[in-house]
């Protein structure tokens, strides 16, 4: 019996650890959703986390958005101007900012700045056994720590998305009008040519999804950190990589699913 299963075990072995990781991540996510519906919601913790995330990520969000948008619009605007269609810059910048550049900038900021700091905080508590102490006292760390953090990221992701879109459109306007000599009135009136209400809604749905995913991954990696300070470092590093991957893939999937409503020209 033992001899017959040995090769099979050897075959499954390399997939054992990643499968377990994925499984326990889903378990934590399910726990979080169930605990989120339970009665006391920790507003104070949630607000503190919101403030913390805003503090670390507003400046990079604005900087990245201005640079990204300014250059993209500049590039496409120059092409449009040489076709004699400089008036369409407004249309393209509205579409680009709301549907793609805004969410992608939000991804970078959320995973680079917010999720790392969150994971490092939770990881430090885990390796100092504060989480175990909470469990011993009968406090559920998922209910007390994870749910407020995920909700905070969900709220702030929407706020960051709004800031990113506003800063981006302002940068677009500056570049189009002052660098490319486009007509300001035409810019403003064409802004809504390719961008409809549906694409704004999709943009914020994407931001909420990104916030939730980033929060879950950061909390999972933080709570499963182990092996001293070095382990926290590794957990932070893996958080960044996994959130990048997950959020970019989520962005592509949502873009494809909603392409018919948002890209209808």
């Amino acid at each position, binding site marked *: 019996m033992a001899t017959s299963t040995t090769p099979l075990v050897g075959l499954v072995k390399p997939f054992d650890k990643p499968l377990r990781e994925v499984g326990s991540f889903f378990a934590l996510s399910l726990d979080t959703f169930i605990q989120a519906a339970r009665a006391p919601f920790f507003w104070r913790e949630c607000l503190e986390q919101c403030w913390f995330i805003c503090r670390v990520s507003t400046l990079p969000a604005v900087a990245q958005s201005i640079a990204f948008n300014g250059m993209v619009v500049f*590039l496409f605007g120059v092409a*449009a101007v040489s076709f004699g269609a400089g008036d369409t810059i407004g249309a393209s910048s509205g579409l680009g900012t709301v549907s793609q550049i805004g969410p992608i900038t939000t991804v970078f900021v959320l995973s680079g*700045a917010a999720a790392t700091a969150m994971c*490092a905080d939770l990881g430090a508590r885990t*390796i100092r056994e504060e989480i175990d102490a909470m469990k011993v006292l009968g406090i559920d760390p998922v209910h007390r720590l994870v749910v407020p953090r995920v909700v905070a990221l969900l709220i702030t992701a929407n706020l960051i998305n709004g800031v990113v879109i506003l800063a981006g459109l302002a940068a677009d306007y500056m570049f189009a009008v002052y660098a490319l000599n486009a007509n300001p009135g035409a810019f403003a009136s064409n802004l809504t040519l390719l961008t409809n209400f549906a694409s704004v809604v999709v943009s914020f749905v994407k931001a909420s999804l990104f916030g939730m995913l980033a929060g879950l991954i950061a909390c999972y990696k933080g709570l499963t950190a182990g092996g001293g300070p070095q382990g926290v*470092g590794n957990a932070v*590093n893996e958080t960044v990589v996994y959130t990048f991957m997950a959020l970019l893939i989520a962005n*592509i999937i949502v873009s494809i699913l909603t392409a018919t409503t948002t890209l209808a020209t």
Partner: protein
Amino acid sequence: MSSNTRTVVNTRFPRLTRSGRAWAGEWNRLGEQAAFYVKTLVSIREAVTRYFGETLRVLAEMGLGVGALALIGGEVVILAVLTGSAAAVVGIFGYVQASSLGVGAIAGFFSAYANVRLQLPLIIANGLAATIGAGATAQIGAMRISEEIDALEVIGIRSIPYLASTRVLGGLLVVPPLYCATFVGSVLTTRSVVILAYHQGAGGFDHYFNTFLLPRDVIVSGLECTVQAVIVMLIHTYYGYTASGGPAGVGEAVGRAVRASIVVSITITFVLSLVLYGKSGDFHLSS
């Protein structure tokens, strides 16, 4: 006398002195940072001659990754995925914009310009900061708070060449092959998005792509990526080297380092592209 006046000023204007001290602290920190960067860059030679083994180890760790990251292929694969997804956006956005003007065939132009000039430098710098940069900060920071760096100094190993210069050199050497891989990956992604998803002719796409792909742009953007990698590694090793305040302090240092390097790398890309390509964009679209 002078200490007496200082106490009087301190008690009379507490807020003024406090903000003055904060400013002085920030100013000193800037100087400290500059001194650290110069020291790190100068000791690269020492890192190669004395700690060659460590340099090679760091280089391998950066290129191929350790632990769970090695499982999915290391830094090269991660950055290929990041730049690939950004290139898909370039394809979608470029085609939609061009076809709204009725010139969908010219999407190859956007691939040649947006990918090379904008997307690759930005995404590679961000990706480096978030992966190997954050890893370096966390590692060196953990060494700092567990007093391993002091231990290194005690046993006669110079910590700046051993920890910081090796990593900066690693960043410098890992970027050229990385750039080549991500360049090919992103160009092919944009091409397949436009051709397979939007059913454009491959010949037209390739024609415009080859016409507008300037060799100078490719070289410049490769150099830009290399410079950014050095700057990102300098910032991240500095924040790790000066981390304090226990494990939570390391986390905070990682967050601050990522924020600083994202802002700096974006500013660099922005300024460089304005300097190199000018306000008119240096396009040769129409005469």
